């Protein structure tokens, strides 16, 4: 069955136009990712208007190309200049830049980064093709209560990780959800919050809201300061070096344990709804250092220090796609944009998506797989393009991108109102960012708002009892996760300082054991019993340890 779907998807993808679009996407992603401050998400957002006239397969393939290329592009800037091109390449600079500058091996450093990205992406592609359908089968168990709780968990998780202040993150999420209610309601089409303006009665289109909140505000932040606005994108000292592919590939494969571990870590973090690659690359680096026999070499130009972050950031892309494809929930902002793109093409991702549209689903898997090969082939060419682009000044790039945003937004519906929406949300996004509110939860709220309301309407149609959210195992599971995700930032800050933090992990295990025990069958309740036992054992152990420490402190 899977083989049949893969073959059918292969036929769908194997036409010149689709491969060309995928390649253009990878190229654009490599350049976008290489420019510090530009971000992969911006690249995907800017490609979106081009995809309107394409088929869903072509449009998604192009965006996936940008996605894969973007994370690999970040290493170019990080290794050659010490400035990460994307947040997903921060840890790459720790060893990539010293290897390039201090050890004088820029070609080898780039090669390691490129091949680590490639293998990380391939591992994630395999996980995507096999895990997503299985996760979708679990998703088929979800009823409207569970789906609603999942979306709320996605928003709380993103809010808790997006910024420094949890309350501001949650407020941002609520702003996004509220913005999605403007216009006609999803059930009966009653106009809401139009305040007498007919055009607003239709609601705001997703694309101008997204581009306004994210791209418009980001560009204005980039040109805010007169000095940064007129500076060149690069330092001016970048050179197109020759990547040592063969030597690098061999070296990366020798470090296969680190490679596989970092890739799987990246996939796992990508599955969780949050800013995946920004977290995964640092975590993978940290794990690689802790597991290494020579941790003192990290930071001096160590091979493992490049393999870990670059394999994990590309693998995160695959993880985020798993959640999007299997559950219809975006794993990061980029998959949130892709979700929006699918909605524009009248395709609604959900647990039924893979079962109902297998060719489209497997085309996306294969596009992700192919994109990694194309990335490998294009990296050397893109390096020359990167060196040229670094001579451009920020204010010129920003001005050109702003007009491109306007043209792209207008192309969606051919109405002036979308351009005014772009301006309005551009102002809103910039103001909120300046005030310390993260933009990602707002975007997630806008993307998920109508889907959440749809789920809630089904819940209300079936039963008015709010206790049903606690009585259903999956719903309770996601509610527990949401609560834990809100406590997590406090745990992070107080870890090692406050005594309650030692009980966080065991409490987390015990809390999740309850809904798992309520699930059908024997496997999950069995896991629940193990989790409960483990949680209780950890709790007792930590209590005894802390009691012992108090006794020693009292005696001394």
């Amino acid at each position, binding site marked *: 069955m899977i083989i049949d779907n893969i073959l059918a998807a292969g036929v769908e993808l194997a036409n010149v136009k689709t491969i060309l679009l995928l390649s253009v996407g990878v190229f654009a992603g490599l350049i976008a990712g290489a420019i510090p401050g530009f971000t992969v998400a911006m690249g995907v957002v800017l490609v979106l208007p081009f995809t309107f006239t394409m088929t869903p397969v072509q449009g998604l393939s192009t965006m996936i190309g940008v996605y894969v290329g973007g994370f690999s592009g970040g290493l170019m800037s990080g290794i050659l200049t010490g400035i990460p091109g994307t947040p997903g390449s921060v840890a790459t600079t720790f060893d990539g830049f010293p290897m390039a500058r201090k050890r004088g091996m820029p070609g080898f450093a780039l090669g390691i980064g490129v091949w680590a990205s490639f293998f990380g992406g391939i591992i994630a592609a395999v996980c995507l093709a096999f895990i997503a359908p299985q996760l979708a089968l679990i998703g088929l168990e979800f009823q409207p209560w569970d789906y609603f709780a999942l979306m709320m968990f996605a928003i709380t998780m993103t809010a808790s990780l997006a910024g420094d202040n949890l309350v501001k993150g949650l*407020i941002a999420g609520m702003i996004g959800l509220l913005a999605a209610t403007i216009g006609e309601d999803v059930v009966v089409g009653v106009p809401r919050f139009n305040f007498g303006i007919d055009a607003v009665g239709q609601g705001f289109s997703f694309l101008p809201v997204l581009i306004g909140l994210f791209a418009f505000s980001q560009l*204005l932040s980039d040109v805010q300061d007169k000095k940064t606005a007129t500076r060149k994108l690069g330092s001016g000292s970048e050179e197109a070096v020759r990547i040592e592919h063969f030597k690098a590939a061999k070296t990366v494969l020798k470090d296969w344990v680190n490679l596989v571990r970092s890739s799987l870590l990246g996939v796992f973090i990508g599955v969780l709804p949050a800013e995946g690659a920004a977290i995964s690359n640092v975590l993978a680096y940290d794990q690689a250092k802790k597991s290494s026999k020579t941790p003192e070499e990290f930071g001096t130009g160590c091979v493992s220090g490049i393999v870990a972050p670059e394999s994990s950031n590309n693998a995160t892309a695959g993880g985020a796609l798993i959640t999007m494809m299997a559950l219809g929930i975006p794993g990061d902002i980029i998959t949130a944009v892709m979700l929006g793109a699918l909605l524009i093409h009248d395709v609604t991702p959900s647990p039924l998506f893979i079962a109902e549209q297998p060719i489209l689903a497997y085309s996306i898997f294969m596009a992700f797989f192919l994109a990694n090969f194309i990335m490998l082939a294009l990296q050397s060419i893109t390096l020359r393009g990167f060196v040229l682009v670094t001579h451009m000044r920020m*204010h010129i790039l920003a001005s050109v991108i702003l007009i491109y945003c306007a043209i792209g937004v207008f192309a969606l519906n051919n109405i002036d109102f979308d351009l005014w929406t772009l301006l309005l949300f551009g102002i809103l996004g910039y103001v909120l960012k300046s005030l310390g509110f993260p933009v990602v939860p707002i975007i997630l709220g806008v993307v998920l708002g109508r889907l959440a309301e749809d789920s809630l309407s089904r819940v209300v149609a079936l039963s008015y009892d709010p206790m049903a959210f606690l009585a259903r195992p999956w719903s309770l599971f996601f509610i527990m996760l949401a609560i834990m995700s809100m406590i997590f930032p406090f745990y992070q800050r107080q870890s090692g300082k406050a005594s309650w933090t030692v009980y966080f992990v065991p409490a987390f295990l015990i809390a999740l054991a309850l809904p798992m025990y309520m699930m059908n069958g024997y496997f999950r309740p069995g896991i629940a019993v193990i989790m409960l036992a483990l949680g209780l054992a950890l709790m007792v152990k930590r209590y005894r340890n802390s009691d012992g420490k108090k006794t020693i402190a009292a005696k001394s």
Partner: protein
Amino acid sequence: MSRPGDNYLGRDGITGEIYMHRLNRDTIVALFLLVICGVFFYDTIGIKSFPEQMSPALWPRLILSVFTVLVLIYLTQSILKKEPEGDARGGFVGWLKHYQNPLLCYFCFFIFLLILPYLGMLITGVLFVFTLTTILGERSQKDLIINAAVSLFSVGGMWLIFTKLLGVILPTAFFTYAF
């Protein structure tokens, strides 16, 4: 002990540093958000309901309820927060100087939207890019030539891609109708 001129200010007992007790930027933002909550809540009263269906006002009210609670927490945090005075950027003029570039961008985009229906996307786009690059960047003769070339080629290129390659209809100038 308060000193003359301390009005809404407090003085840290250890460092002697002056801090604002109540009214700071976050407090103003929180109060503004509360007003927004109130306005939207009031608007939900006028939303029609239908029997046997979830009320279209239910979901917005749920969001607004949570929103209000969060804003109240934010307001409390802002009031209790000690923020050293001296965050001012030289008053209104200083504020304008600090946000000059973004304000100019918004203003240019606003003008762009106003004249778009008359001059079309191509001409208005070229003018927009040229004006913005000139305002934000240097204004030597060489820079002006570069800005003009960039605006012509970039906007022209985009216009060609969208209209000829992708078949998208973009607004045209009023005088083209005469032909």
